[in-house]
């Protein structure tokens, strides 16, 4: 096991320890585990199931029910295009098309180099700035498709 794996596993064990025996602890543990690993691989789900003493089927059931959990690795930069009503009527679909064609991927795909993942998200509540996209925690609003290459280039060189 690499050093990085060991650190992450230790972190995960601490989280499990903290929530063990607490009612409703499974979802917070999965949220923290995803922060640590970026997604929820099978081995992590197994470790959580054992640690919290709940059936693996429960862990898997919860992990697949909520849309913010991912069972597949995601890119370094997660691009989320808001598909709330306000963004939709202001042309969010054109933004999705443009980001997709710039990166050569479809929605819910990751670029081959592992840098970008493209997702459409539920309303993020920035309706006053529609249409909106997020790159990790950065928010870009009042978009037109021609602005997309400029935004992406900021992250391509990072």
């Amino acid at each position, binding site marked *: 096991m690499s050093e990085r794996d060991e650190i992450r596993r230790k972190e995960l064990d601490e989280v499990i320890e903290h929530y063990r025996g607490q009612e409703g602890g499974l979802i917070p543990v999965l949220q923290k585990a995803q922060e640590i690993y970026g997604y929820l691989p099978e081995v992590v789900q197994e470790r959580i199931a054992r640690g919290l003493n709940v059936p693996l089927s429960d862990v898997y059931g919860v992990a697949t029910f909520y849309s913010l959990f991912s069972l597949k690795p995601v890119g370094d930069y997660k691009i989320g295009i808001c598909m709330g009503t306000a963004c939709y009527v202001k042309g969010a679909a054109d933004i999705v098309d443009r980001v997709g064609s710039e990166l050569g991927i479809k929605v819910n795909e990751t670029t081959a180099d592992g840098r970008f993942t493209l997702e459409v998200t*539920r309303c993020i509540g920035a309706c*006053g700035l529609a249409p909106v996209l997020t790159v990790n925690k950065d928010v870009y609003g009042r978009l037109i498709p021609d602005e997309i290459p400029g935004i992406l280039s900021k992250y391509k060189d990072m």
Partner: protein
Amino acid sequence: MAFYRSHVLVCGGTGCTSSGCQKVQEALATSLKREGLDKEVAVVQTGCFGFCRLGPIVIVYPEGAFYTQVKPEDVPDIVTEHLIKGKLVERLLFKEEMHEKPVSLYGDIDFYKKQHRIALRNCGAINPEKIGEYFAVDGYQALAKVLHTMTPQEVIDTIKASGLRGRGGGGFLTGAKWEFAARAVGDKKYVVCNADEGDPGAFMDRSVLEGDPHTVLEAMAIAGYAIGASQGYIYVRAEYPIAVERLRTAIAQAREEGMLGENIFNKGFSFDIELRLGSGAFVCGEETALLASVEGKRGMPRPRPPFPAVKGLLGCPTIINNVETLANIPPIILKGVEWFTSIGTERSKGTKVFALAGKINNTGLVEVPMGTTLREIIYDIGGGLPGGKTFKAAQTGGPSGGCIPVQYLDIPIDYDSLAEIGSMMGSGGLIVMDETSCMVDIAKFFLEFTQDESCGKCTPCREGTRQMLEILKRITGGQGKPGDIELLEDLAETIKAASLCGLGQTAPNPVLSTLRYFREEYEAHINEKRCPAGVCQALLNYRIEPEKCKGCGLCAKECPVGAITGERKSPFVLDAGKCIKCGACVAKCPFKAISR
């Protein structure tokens, strides 16, 4: 205590944060320091002012000068002109669409003049990260009053008498809910705040959480006292990172100041609050699904009764109130029932916050008395539609609601009037649409949403929404058949009647309401294979009108598939066989000569 001659308020809501308010605030701090004014002028980061279109927004008090779209490079002007010389920086002042002269003062702006802010009273007025500022605006006074002078039953009676109804969508009487939970037998009881604002197009709860988190904590403690609970949970969306952070800060500060925790105000009442983060499931806004999620399970609803007030979280009596509802509680306790019931209509008291978005000039949050007309909200406060477009419909209530057509612009809006015309209050999202919005497409958009968010427990909802969506896709794709409308109506009835929770029971509403008011649009799609709004790509037929075409050739240059040909200075021709209907030519044509 430090005394400042001026306060510069910088909006730190999600909207302004993405417009770059952080840099403006930093620039202000450096600039003030350089001029030696940092002991005279305070910079305050507040919650949302509601006027998201024009962010970042900066207000300078005591004058109340309202500066919009402020960039870091504008800061030196604000400092030297306004704060040193005492002159307004005219070029940054807000300009009303209708008026020529800029409006200098916050209170003079049409957007704010007709508003009546109760739930949003502190948003944009105080620093949400400092409990001291909340104290300064009578924060936690209501909790003190309740603990010192009222019995739990008196609190319940007050809320009942105020007529406050749930602002999250249901419109159930808040006081009645509290009474059920108070009477229910149980060793443990819980107060849960539903901050899972999933309704697309609504963002008032986010604004309250970001701009005035303590009001939610205070109201929850009051509710806890009323029903006999000592533990509260706030179920907040993970999609709202700023709100989550501010809530964490607020809870820590409230504990430190003794507003939460053991023996509050030495009155023997203990109450504490924990956060639970949602993980992206719209159905968790439904109360029984939300409770399942707080318990760490898949968020699926269960049949009611028993209602959560009797058997809720972990089997204990639980009340679940939405953020905006809670934000009304402290003012009702402090200002009294008479004051609150003087606002609003007969059966809907108080105010409602609406999130204005879509094809409207002033996007943002507005709080108006119940009974205000849609026309006042859209035209007087919202500044009308941009680009001279005409109003076609307003969508309220999100995926559970419906579209309100132009003939109802003048009905006074409250819970009951909206239900009568086939829409609903919902959480208060209000999306304005103009003639370029296709109603069939909007119905399809909402069905895509509900179909995807259906938890799958009830077959009519799981399968029925899928079938409805398939039909709508066919209609917008040019494959509609006679009988489709009737089939949609039939499916809608079954789904409404046979689903367990609000998601399924209301999922067909967007289709039913658009069928009610825009049936001819459906018929045009099905019978004439035509989309009157020019949205549904498969139904568009691009054509160059020879009498309007000046032969400039811009369209031919723009066309990605070479479908347009012609000689310069004579009308060009579009080959419909090659056309991929991308719309690039329409966007480029200076003479509006291309029709679809």
